[in-house]
């Protein structure tokens, strides 16, 4: 009986301890960090290599603005600090932020182009990966032609917290257009350490005025005077940014990396420029590596399925043979985009597609000879075969366009 009372009291007292009071964090003592921006310090006076800017959520204002009231103060605030290492800089920020910084909800890391170009991204990621609080699923973007701090300072109208704006922009652009790649911390580190593969990261730039963009008036305007948009894919080599891919070239990257879900492709028809638009519904791209006579051969095969989305010319869409012809021209156009991306990457001597990795997986013994100067010699010389199969399954709600009737009059 005595023993039982003893155990009962022991168990009850341990309940007190296991509630987690040890390192308790009250919600109103936390500053929830939504984005983490890293810049290279440029001023002479403030010594230190990195400038870390935190975007902190002002909880009351986010909720307030949803209900239509509030809006008197911005939904986010930013704080900057400078130091030689990332962790010191972010710790030092406690002098400026009244609450304990909490990184578990940080889902965006912005790195400035200057830092990525001059020093590379290899050194700044370790602290983030090592921390148990920070998630490795946080997405990374590069501030194109801008300071990373300015990107996280912009106030965005629809999604009040601009890190969410960036993430959703990437997500939906990837879903319906291409030209951007959704990469998180893990993907970047994996690409950095895997031989025969280099990372690619989406760039974001500031449109309009960065000073006006960070003011509250920015989101009270129907046309924000400062805004951000996804702009190109940053190409890396040995951890350093070496170039940008834009428009069709960057969509070529999306094709090869099999990142396209749906998109639209315009092709010329007879005399008319960009006369037919192909609505891609689904696609699958496979990359295969073989060795032929001691040199690597990469075959890229894309299978695309879709509809006709727009027609600007007189064309008989109900005719099967015409559709076959249209399919051929779609194939040609997509092939062109892919080839353009490959050509650019070869020119930059950076294997962003992971072709080297494919060679390694298929032929590990031969890869040992190629690995040393894959990017500089073997990748630019590698033979790359591109084949595209496009299928037009439907033509939308109409058959022939009314334009045919107008022209036949």
């Amino acid at each position: 009986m005595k023993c039982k009372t003893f155990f009962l009291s022991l168990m009850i007292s341990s309940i007190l301890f296991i509630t987690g009071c040890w390192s308790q964090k009250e919600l109103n003592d936390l500053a929830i960090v939504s984005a983490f921006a890293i810049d290279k310090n440029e001023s002479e006076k403030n010594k230190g290599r990195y400038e870390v800017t935190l975007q902190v959520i002002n909880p009351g204002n986010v909720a307030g603005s949803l209900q239509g009231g509030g809006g008197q103060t911005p939904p986010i605030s930013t704080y900057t600090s400078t130091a030689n290492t990332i962790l010191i800089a972010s710790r030092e920020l406690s002098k400026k932020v009244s609450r304990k910084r909490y990184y578990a909800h940080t889902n965006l890391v912005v790195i400035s182009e200057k830092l990525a170009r001059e020093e590379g991204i290899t050194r700044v990621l370790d602290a983030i990966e090592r921390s148990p609080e920070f998630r490795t699923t946080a997405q990374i973007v590069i501030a194109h032609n801008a300071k990373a701090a300015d990107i996280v300072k912009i106030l965005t109208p629809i999604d009040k917290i601009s890190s969410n704006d960036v993430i959703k922009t990437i997500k939906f652009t990837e879903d319906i257009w291409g030209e951007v790649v959704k990469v998180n911390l893990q993907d970047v580190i994996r690409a950095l350490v895997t031989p025969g593969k280099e990372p690619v990261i989406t760039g974001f730039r500031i449109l309009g005025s960065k000073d006006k963009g960070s003011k509250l008036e920015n989101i009270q305007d129907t046309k924000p005077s400062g805004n951000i948009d996804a702009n190109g894919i940053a190409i890396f080599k040995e951890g350093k940014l070496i170039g940008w891919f834009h428009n069709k070239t960057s969509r070529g990257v999306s094709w090869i990396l099999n990142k396209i879900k749906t998109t639209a492709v315009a092709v010329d028809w007879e005399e008319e420029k960009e006369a037919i638009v192909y609505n891609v519904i689904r696609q699958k791209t496979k990359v295969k590596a073989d060795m032929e006579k001691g040199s690597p051969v990469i075959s890229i095969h894309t299978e695309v399925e879709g509809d006709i989305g727009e027609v600007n010319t007189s064309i008989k869409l109900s005719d099967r043979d015409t559709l076959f012809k249209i399919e051929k021209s779609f194939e040609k156009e997509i092939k062109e985009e892919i080839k353009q991306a490959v050509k650019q990457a070869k020119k930059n001597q950076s294997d962003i597609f992971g072709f080297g990795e494919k060679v390694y997986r298929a032929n590990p013994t031969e890869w040992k000879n190629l690995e040393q100067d894959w990017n500089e010699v073997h990748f630019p010389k590698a033979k790359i075969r591109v084949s595209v199969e496009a299928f037009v399954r439907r033509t939308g709600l109409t058959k022939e366009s009314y334009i045919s009737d107008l022209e036949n009059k």
Partner: protein
Amino acid sequence: MEKAKISITQLFVLILLFEQGDSMLLPLAMEVKQDSWISILLSTIGGVLLFLVYYRLYRYFPNVLPTDYFQKIVGKVLGKGLAFLYILYFVYFSARLLRSFGEILGIFVYPFTPLIFINIFMVIVVVYTVRKGIEVLSRTAELLFIVLLFLSVTGLILVSSSGLINIHNLTPVLENGISPILKNVFTETLYIPFGELIVFTMIFPYLNSSKKVKSIGVVSVILSGMNLAFGAALNIGVLGTHLASRYQFPLLTTMQSIQILQFLERLDVYFLIALIIGCFFKIALFFYAAVIGISDLFKIREPSQVSYPLGFVVLFLSIQMASSYSEQLQEELKILPLAIQLPFQVIIPILLLIIAFFKNKKNH
């Protein structure tokens, strides 16, 4: 020996939980990179053979504990010495596991809590269960096994449906031939976790029937080997060899990578529950073996009397044994397998079996 009986199902469940233990959570056989699953499967064969050695020993002396039959095999003095060494071995490894458990929790969820407090709470639970005896431990195992099974199945569904698995990460298979894998088997995976089955020699005498022990035991060892191999392959499939071999807990990172439909994410709790259940049984079984061994060797009538003092020993040993987690891991994976695990798990049992075989032959 306490008066208790466990069923064959309970043995099956105990072996599965024990084998999964911390091995599922730590990077196992990562030295051989994408071939780690082959290494684990090969060592499963070794594990089955070792299990049969332990089983044979049990069949020669079905009703007594190893601490007893050591004396019958090699004589009273030597046998007692050997039994004492084994008890030290069990104490040491329950402390080592307790340390691992505390360190994993400390690294991952409780960075600001001193190690000793995490360990104290685990020790309290372990001592309490072991005091209640092997029957209670086995019944707990049956209950928690269902929880773990549920977690594994749903976890697997979540990982595979989030589209993270890239099967190509497992190629090229056998990049450097078979020899590094064999080396890895004989320096690491054979001992952790398969050789650790030696602890079940202390459990066998409690079985209520000696029928089917062999087949059920072998099946459970093979199943747990396949489970571990599958886990290793899954981690590499999701993370790739470079990340999987660099992370402290690949399974944790795998679970954290899951992002489905914007809301099914941050499933760290899966890892946590598996950690607590697995480590609890591994620590408890080692600890139980030590307690029952001591009471048998020193003729203490109530085994439960030993558990409290031994709980303190294990607790302080776990704090003292290493100054950092890196030291702990280095000892566990690099030094101990050949220095302690090999003689205690392989050499001594096989020698004992040979002696027992010849003695048995002479008697007939």
